[in-house]
């Protein structure tokens, strides 16, 4: 006679993953809508459903503020830290949806949007993941959907992008999985919270941490693990690129921050993390120098993303509590200025051609003064000039890294900024100078006006955040 098994978790556990559940289940509705509705309605209904699901999930997540809870035997932790990153993921996904009006063919729209949401749910899982298994589950959920999405555009470079991403990302996942195995071997636990105690075998533990970090440095596309980024960003459809540039990074950064702040034993945490700062420094240089030579805005933003994530990671240097707040602030600022730039690219896109080549920007300042001015604003923000959130964020990061005793990072940040100004100004120059004499043959024919909404919100947010460097104050205690 089989005995009755006790179910080890109750309602509170399910409540903890409710926002995540909503984002993971909405795609089912999306797919059904895609199957049942007539073709003419399909795309708009699908997008609306997905947006509603995300907004509802955002609302549910926000409701959990101030109720930290450790669900599923410590596998998933809710609290301020998780919520902040989940909201960033949700916002990033929402903005990507605004650009998704020409994502794939009509009969692919439902599937593509569903994949996008599943991918976002993976990032949300990573935001709260507190043991190695949930981390890996979230990461793979995030990545598997993206492999498919990358190949969605009907051009050879898209397939190239998808294949490259699959191969290289799998390699990185392999490194990480090996690292997880070593970590488990060294500590006998998969819980991050169990790592803080001195490990039985320090050698295994440090090696495991190293391999584990490689996986996430790859996902954050920090140099020299950024090598895949430009090709993949260029090949992937625009909304997917925008999604990857924010959501993937938010998920990976959440895990990285949790690992750095809550998991590592105090004694050798700083020594283990040193390569991370070196990689951040390298990214600021490589990313910005790489951006110099680009003639494609998506590639340029890929390199710029490498540099920007370098800044974010530099904020964590010394793992100070202030640094974490500033990193989160800069990530939010980066989300707005970066997605704003992507939205401008979306507006310049046409049916079969994405408006990412530099030539699409020639003389834009005279054809579309408002759009060009906004693009200039976003680029100045990315370059870190006032009055933008990028300036504030960079200033804060500089202050915190100098404060934490990493002045050399601050110096490299400044040098990187100087280089980047040149790269971004190239686009500004193109918009305001050379093409002025060109005929006005490229009028604006975006697939929809939705990206305008994205541009407007991002511009306002980028400006407002300059003066209100909001960073939630009670994040740190909730990391653990």
């Amino acid at each position: 006679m089989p005995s009755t098994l006790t179910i080890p978790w109750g309602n509170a556990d399910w409540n903890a993953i409710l926002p995540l559940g909503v984002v993971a289940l909405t795609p089912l509705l999306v797919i059904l809508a895609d199957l049942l509705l007539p073709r003419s309605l399909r795309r708009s209904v699908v997008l609306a459903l997905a947006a509603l699901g995300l907004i509802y999930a955002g609302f549910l997540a926000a409701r959990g503020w101030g109720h930290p809870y450790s669900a599923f035997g410590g596998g998933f932790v809710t609290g301020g830290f998780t919520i902040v990153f989940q909201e960033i993921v949700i916002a990033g996904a929402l903005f990507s949806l605004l650009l998704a009006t020409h994502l794939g063919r009509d009969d692919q729209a439902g599937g593509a949007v569903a994949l996008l949401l599943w991918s976002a749910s993976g990032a949300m899982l990573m935001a709260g993941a507190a043991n190695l298994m949930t981390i890996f589950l979230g990461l793979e959920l995030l990545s598997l959907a993206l492999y498919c999405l990358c190949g969605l555009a009907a051009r050879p470079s898209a397939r190239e992008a998808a294949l490259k991403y699959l191969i290289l990302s799998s390699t990185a996942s392999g490194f990480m999985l090996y690292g997880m195995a070593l970590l488990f071997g060294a500590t006998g636990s998969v819980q991050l919270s169990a790592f803080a105690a001195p490990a039985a075998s320090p050698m295994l533990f440090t090696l495991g941490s190293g391999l584990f970090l490689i996986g996430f440095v790859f996902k954050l596309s920090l140099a020299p693990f950024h090598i895949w980024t430009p090709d993949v960003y260029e090949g992937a459809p625009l909304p997917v690129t925008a999604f990857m540039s924010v959501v993937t990074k938010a998920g990976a950064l959440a895990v990285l921050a949790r690992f750095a702040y809550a998991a590592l034993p105090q004694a050798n945490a700083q020594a283990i993390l040193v390569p991370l700062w070196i990689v951040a420094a390298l990214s600021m240089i490589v990313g910005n120098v790489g951006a110099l030579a680009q003639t494609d805005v998506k590639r340029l933003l890929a390199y710029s993303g490498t540099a920007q994530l370098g800044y974010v990671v530099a904020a964590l240097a010394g793992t100070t509590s202030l640094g974490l707040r500033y990193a989160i602030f800069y990530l939010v600022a980066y989300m707005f200025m970066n997605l704003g730039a992507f939205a401008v690219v979306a507006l310049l896109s046409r049916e079969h051609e994405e408006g990412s080549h530099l030539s699409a920007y020639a003389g834009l300042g005279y054809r579309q003064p408002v759009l060009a001015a906004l693009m200039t604003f976003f680029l100045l923000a990315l370059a870190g000039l006032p009055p933008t959130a990028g300036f504030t964020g960079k200033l804060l990061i500089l202050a915190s890294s100098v404060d934490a005793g990493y002045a050399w990072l601050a110096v490299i940040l400044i040098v990187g900024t100087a280089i980047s100004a040149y790269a971004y100004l190239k686009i500004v120059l193109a918009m305001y100078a050379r093409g002025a004499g060109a005929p006005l043959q490229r009028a604006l024919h975006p697939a929809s006006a939705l990206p305008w909404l994205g541009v407007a919100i991002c511009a306002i947010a980028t400006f407002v955040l300059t003066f209100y460097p909001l960073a939630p104050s009670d994040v740190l205690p909730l990391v653990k």
Partner: protein
Amino acid sequence: MSNDALVLLALWLLPLASAILIFAFGPMLRRSAGVIGSGAVLVPFALTWVLAASALGTGGLKVHLFDWIAGFSFGLWLDPLSLLWTLIITGVGGLIHVYAIGYMWSDRAIARFFAYMNFFVFAMLTLVLSDNFVGLLVGWGLVGLASYFLIGFWFFKPSAVAAAMKAFVINVVGDAGLMFAVFVLFAATGSTAYADVFAKAATLAPATVLLACIAIFIGCAAKSAQIPLHTWLPDAMEGPTPVSALIHAATMVTAGVYLVARCAPLWDVSPEARALVGTIGALTALVGAILGIAQWDIKRILAYSTMSQIGYMIMGVGVGAYQAGILHFFTHAFFKAQLFLAAGIVIHALHDEQDLRKMGGLGKKMPLAFWAMTIGTLAIIGFPPFSGFFSKDAVIYGALERGYPLLSLIGVVTAGITAYYMCRMLFVTFLGNNRGNVPDVDLGIPAREHSEPHFGESAPAWVMGAPVAILMVPSVVAGWVVFGGRWNALFASDFAPKPESALATVLPEWLVGVVVLAFVAWGVAAAYHRYGSFDATVSAVERLRAESQRMAQPLVRAFYFDDALEALFVRPARAVGSAFMRVVDPHVIDGVVRDVVWLAGWIGREVRALQTGLVRGYALVLALGAAAFLAYFALIGASR
């Protein structure tokens, strides 16, 4: 907020509001943009006078705007030093704006021009009015941006775009230095407000102060065209002449002088920094003057003279003779703006001809320009009682007084050279007969493409004439402020009293003045002897041609500074960059190659080879990175 505070806020923000307005409604405004733009600068000028009394009171006028995050609060501060700069920026700036209405009359983009100009004025005001280093940095960056836009204003000229890029890059180098300095100071004192930093200046470690001073001065050198970062200034003359007058003569390029004077408490505790800055200033003055001799382009001569005169100012504030340095800024703003505006009239009238060799005999045709240029020249060479005499003498004697006799000597020699090349420009342009019809080859001018004359109808003559006429008055009298010691008293609260050196007690000021005058007289005489009767006769043209071709190479190539910078930085950077690209992003280079390849029609094989190679190459980079990572972890793991 008090009334004064509101007035200050208004005068600071008015140019910005006007810039936005003009930028937004430019096409509708057309030429009235010029009137609005000029008004938005002249009204703040009037407002500044309203505030003069409270600015000169104890501690100046302080307006606290907002608290930002801890350690950064932003406010405005109008003290005698910033008052002086504000008056020049808005006063001389306003006159140049009016002049620009005429100069840009038939340019289709006149509205955009005034939007940029107003934006520049706003940025410059931010720079001088800020009460903390962060605000300074913001203004510092923004003036660079405005300057970049204005140099490249005629973007259809490739040379203008290249010049704009060069100016921007060099300025970014300076910005980085300044930013670094701010962080050094912030790390050392925990604040970015001037008041807090300067209060702690004396207690800081000397090495820290020296580091901060050097970093600050890198910023100053880039912005104020001090060697070896001066090479962008002559090229910047590609911008419209009013831009040259406003940004590259009267205001922006003197930001370095302002900053050194502002940071006087730092320099006061670091003798090494003082010697460095004074020396760089003196050398710049000398080099600029020597290079001015070899130029044929009227605006480039003025550019080198600007560089040279700013060298004097930097030398003055550098050695600690702050009042003398800023007095030279004060007088220079008037006579240099006037020289540029007069040159602009000539250039405008000759349809964009800037080559001296094609001018000559213009004195009778353009009397206003001639007299303006003459008065400006007399002022700049330091002829009594014109304004430059008092300020230049003050700088030279100041250096002597502070115990830098060698720098003082350089200043004296430079004064002689200045007299020579300025008179050369004046005589060749205005005396003798007109050479406008002599073919280029006969004059020894290398063949080059002529820019399209884009001036159609022109504005009423008084629009350009009036500002020049008004500027003549201060060009003569501005130096007289020294009488009665009032000038020095004005800034007594800002700067520590000066120590007298032994030499200064021996040599009285009047004697130094006489020596300077002797050198100046020699320069004028030499120039007259050589160029006084330059006409269109065969022998004169022959001489011009011979001189054009025999010019010493080091002078023509501007002492190889550009070549040196190119060899030291640009070429290695390019080499590193391309090597880097080859390693990191084979796609970029191949992208270019690929386009060509595609046209040639053999894309297939090439791309396939590229792709299979790429993923493997990428994986190799990943593996190498991972190996480096693991090596580190194995090391720290084993050491435990």
